[in-house]
């Protein structure tokens, strides 16, 4: 049962329909007062501290660890190395399905990337454990690090991203390029990025016999249970995970990461509860990242600016020991109409930790390259970038030929352009200056992200006192699941929000599916909606079959639920409260169950399902010094039904700011000799600060979708990055006349002239 109870109700509680209301976060007060319990806040009695020692080399083996010195340090309880690590039920290098990533759990002395855990030191205090780890002073047999996209031979991966085909095409791009009147071929480079949620991976693990209790941030508790069950050879139901709040996830907490498992191993080894929290620099290695890309786009148009060919090829990198290839080309399959479209990928392997899903995996780097190339093609055609995009507007999904389930992108273009003032944009670059002499540039990009659905369950309860409960093990990463899902639950049960107890955030509740792919609100929301409908249907059955009820004979379809009462649809004056129905039936409560996810989710859909948007960006650039700033960002997004506009806007703002980051700031700087990330800290791994994003504006464009799911939700978590990053790059070009194709854009590149 859930041990987390939120006492706070939203400040702007509104009666009647809850969906669509801009409620503030129900957990907001808990968070701003520090009362929201994050994993690292837990401190069970008898707890010890674990600190990881990590490798400073990228390839080789650990030849020696000074375990004796570490163990001799006052307060150190245990040092766990491959020599004494407790046996596991499963080889950490086993991979029985594509979502099972190989982990570094001290299985041997090999080192395969910098930052790989090589030992755990457990101590009575954090300080003692930290010093114990330092005292290990590892000696290595070093092999040369293989670093960068130019390392080794490239190959065609079997799959990219989460099992997508690596290549696809429609038509013959080579033939169309020959026939084209105008063509461009350009290569764009994006840097490796690390998720770096504010809250690092943390775990507090406690064993009681073969029962495991853990506090850890998770975007997918049920999958984590399954993974841990396999590793430790216990039943998943023996594992209880509490994850009520995440301080950000962005994909690196989707699957349980090696260091979290090491915390569980440490607890088992010492027989006491153990806390393990990664340091910021330890976030660069064993918990995933976004691989770098080198993307080549070839585009061709006819004399009128209609695309004949769009070829998008991505070279990207995985680790030497596992497969995750950033599916950057895939975005070109869905966005622009073209007589021929081809997408492909090639991979290389380097001595790095395995990349993983990172907010808008594929779409983010793919979009910055595609939107840059579209801009360059528009320039080659002498066309306004918006006119060019409208000219090549896809009425059906280009690669599949399927109709879109809904697509209000034209309206996004229109509303975004109007809010931004795009029509005043001069066609040529380097035409605009502000009154202080800064170069001003305006750029745009199209945003897109698929509308996914995963599987989920929920349980609803209506109680005799007229209140309701909704149970689902959902994940609040900061996006507002505690609030938005409760809104859906309240409507699903026909209750006001203050009559609803919403239980979430623990693994003993029904599985809400993974909080990823921008699909959590849709997936969990549909399960909740269906569970509510099921409970209401059972309640209606009771009433309509009871001749003492004013609803007798109305039939299920003839009853509606609202504000804790059932009414006849044809005569709203005839109705009665849930409490009366349950009371008369002598029932304490009634339960409903519901599943989310399309029951035919594995079947081929008749529709292409995507959210869309249009982002317009103004940058200012110092003409002499090259320093630049995105002074104005306006995005208009159509993402189906919006459950909570306040939270949706926050997601879009965050995504757009990430887009600015992608274009101008974010990159892991890797030493080419050692393979170590040299800026593994927040002083030098730049993300935008407030002064970098003085004006961010988002418009929610109305869109109704009857096909994505019963609630019409598409998701808003990732789309904000797409479109924005390319729009920033295009604005830098428009300001300066300099086209920078290596991201992030460095001011060095703008110093020419």
């Amino acid at each position: 049962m859930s041990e987390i109870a939120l006492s706070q109700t939203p400040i702007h509680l509104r009666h009647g329909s809850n969906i669509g209301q801009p409620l503030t976060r129900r957990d907001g007060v808990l968070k701003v007062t520090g009362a929201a319990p994050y994993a690292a806040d837990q401190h069970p009695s008898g707890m010890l501290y674990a600190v990881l020692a990590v490798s400073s080399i990228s390839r080789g083996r650990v030849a020696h660890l000074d375990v004796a010195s570490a163990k001799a340090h006052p307060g150190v309880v245990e040092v766990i190395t491959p020599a004494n690590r407790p046996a596991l039920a499963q080889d950490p290098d086993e991979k029985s399905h594509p979502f099972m990533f190989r982990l570094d759990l001290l299985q041997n002395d090999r080192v395969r990337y910098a930052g790989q855990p090589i030992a755990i030191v457990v101590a009575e205090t954090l300080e003692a454990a930290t010093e114990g780890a330092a005292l290990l002073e590892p000696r290595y047999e070093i092999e040369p690090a293989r670093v960068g996209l130019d390392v080794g031979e490239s190959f065609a991966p079997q799959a990219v991203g989460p099992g997508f085909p690596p290549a696809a095409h429609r038509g013959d791009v080579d033939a169309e390029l020959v026939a084209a009147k105008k063509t461009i071929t350009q290569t764009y480079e994006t840097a490796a990025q690390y998720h770096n949620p504010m809250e690092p991976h943390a775990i507090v693990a406690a064993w009681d016999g073969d029962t495991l209790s853990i506090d850890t941030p998770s975007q997918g508790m049920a999958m984590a249970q399954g993974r841990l069950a396999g590793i430790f050879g216990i039943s998943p139901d023996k594992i209880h995970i509490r994850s009520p709040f995440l301080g950000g996830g962005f994909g690196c907490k989707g699957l349980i990461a090696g260091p979290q498992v090491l915390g569980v191993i440490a607890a088992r080894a010492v027989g006491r509860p153990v806390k393990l929290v990664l340091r910021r620099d330890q976030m660069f290695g064993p918990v995933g990242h976004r691989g770098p890309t080198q993307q080549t786009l070839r585009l061709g148009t006819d004399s009128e600016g209609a695309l004949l060919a769009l070829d998008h090829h991505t070279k990207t990198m995985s680790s030497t020991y596992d497969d995750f290839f950033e599916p950057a080309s895939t975005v070109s399959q869905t966005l622009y109409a073209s007589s021929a479209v081809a997408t492909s990928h090639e991979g290389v392997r380097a001595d790095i930790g395995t990349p993983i899903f990172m907010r808008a995996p594929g779409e983010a780097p793919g979009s910055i390259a595609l939107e840059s190339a579209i801009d360059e093609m528009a320039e080659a055609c002498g066309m306004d970038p918006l006119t060019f995009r409208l000219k090549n507007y896809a009425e059906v999904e280009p690669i599949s030929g399927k109709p879109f389930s809904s697509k209000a992108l034209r309206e996004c273009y229109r509303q975004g352009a109007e809010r931004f003032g795009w029509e005043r944009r001069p066609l040529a670059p380097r035409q605009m200056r502000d009154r202080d002499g800064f170069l001003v540039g305006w750029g745009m990009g199209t945003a897109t992200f698929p509308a996914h659905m995963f599987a989920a369950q929920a349980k609803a309860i209506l109680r005799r006192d007229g209140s309701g409960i909704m149970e689902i093990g959902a994940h609040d990463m900061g996006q507002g699941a505690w609030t938005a899902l409760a809104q859906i639950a309240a409507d699903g049960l026909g209750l006001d929000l203050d009559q609803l107890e919403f239980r979430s955030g623990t693994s003993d509740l029904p599985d809400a599916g993974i909080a990823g792919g921008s699909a959590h609100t849709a997936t969990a929301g549909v399960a909740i909606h269906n569970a509510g409908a099921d409970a209401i249907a059972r309640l209606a059955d009771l009433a309509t079959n009871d001749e003492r009820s004013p609803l007798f004979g109305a039939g299920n379809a003839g009853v509606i639920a609202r504000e804790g009462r059932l009414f006849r649809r044809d005569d709203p004056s005839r109705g009665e409260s849930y409490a009366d129905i349950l009371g008369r039936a002598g029932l304490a409560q009634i339960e409903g169950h519901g599943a989310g996810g399309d029951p035919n989710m594995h079947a081929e859909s008749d529709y292409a399902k995507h959210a869309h948007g249009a982002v317009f960006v103004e940058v200012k650039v110092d003409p002499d010094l090259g320093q630049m700033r995105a002074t104005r960002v306006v995005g208009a997004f159509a993402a189906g039904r919006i459950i909570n506009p306040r939270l949706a806007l926050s997601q879009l703002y965050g995504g757009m700011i990430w887009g600015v980051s992608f274009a101008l700031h974010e990159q892991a700087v890797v030493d080419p000799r050692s393979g170590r990330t040299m800026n593994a800290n927040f002083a030098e791994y730049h993300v935008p600060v407030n002064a970098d994003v003085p004006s961010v504006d988002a418009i929610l464009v109305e869109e109704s979708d009857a096909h994505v799911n019963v609630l019409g939700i598409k998701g808003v978590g990732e789309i904000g990055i797409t479109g924005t990053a390319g729009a920033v790059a295009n604005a830098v070009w428009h300001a300066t006349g300099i086209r920078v194709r290596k991201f992030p854009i460095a001011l060095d590149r703008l110093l020419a002239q």
Partner: protein
Amino acid sequence: MKNFDYVRPKTIREAVSAAAGPGAVYLASGTNLLDLMKGGVTKPNRLVDITHLPGLDQVEGLPDGGVRIGALVRNADLAHDRDFAKRFPAVAEALLSGASAQLRNAATIGGNLMQRVRCAYFYDPASACNKRAPGSGCDARGGDNRLHAILGWSESCIATHPSDLCVALVALDAVVEIEGSAGRREIPLETFHRLPGDSPDRETVLEPGEMIVAVRLPSEAVQFAAHARYLKVRDRTSYAFAVVSAAAALRIEANVIAEARIAMGGVALKPWRARAAEQILIGARPSTARFTNAAATALADAKPSGDNAFKIELARRVVARALAAAVAGTPERTPALPGSPFAAVSGALAHV
């Protein structure tokens, strides 16, 4: 981390005595030192906490019109001291261009002089660094060195000094008051930091146990108040170390430059005073051509230490721009984006 002694002396004399031994360091707010200790970059045996010493947190006007800034004055307190900012606007602007509001609220003036380089190889104990481990080599050579030195570097070290404050102070002939076992001495800040040469591990002229007690700005520095600016080019708008920065201060009489001060940051292991460039300006009417000429002179000896040749041209432009900004006149109030090229932005978008 490694265990260490922690002592909290009651007087400066006690402090100097406590810090005389090997492995002892002074602790003020620790905004840099504690990070270095946590990362295993420095491993002192003893921390001498000077934050409780009396009398070091005052900003005092001197009889001759100069100012004496106690070593424990907080960056934010000094920058927001309206009288100080009015008389030494480039110093206030430099202070406010550095770090974040939280760090400025904690960090001290003395500590600012003592902050260590931001070279990634210095911070990474697994890398060779002659500053951290003398004789081990310099992995910044041939590594990631985009932001490294273009002036005064040696084969043994190519790092830059990260301070903004010190750049403005050096331009204005600040003096450092130092207390040691042999008593008190004072030296110009310009000679306080050492160039790397063969011993980059020796970063300042401080002898073991010596302690900064104050920084003084002479009365002459006030004469630049009407034309004094700090300009700092960064990879993001705020909360970033300088790619290149410059302090420029002019005394203009009858539209002629009577006196000029130029110092650069982010270019060398110390704040770099450009005296030859200053000479070019004296007696001249302000003009773009003259500023460009001075800037070229300031960088005459510059050479790249790696993948950073762009910084030479950038530094020329920064110096010329800082001079132009100084001529235009010190703004009534410190700009909302202090030190930024975007400090000039008119209107509502300039908030920080």
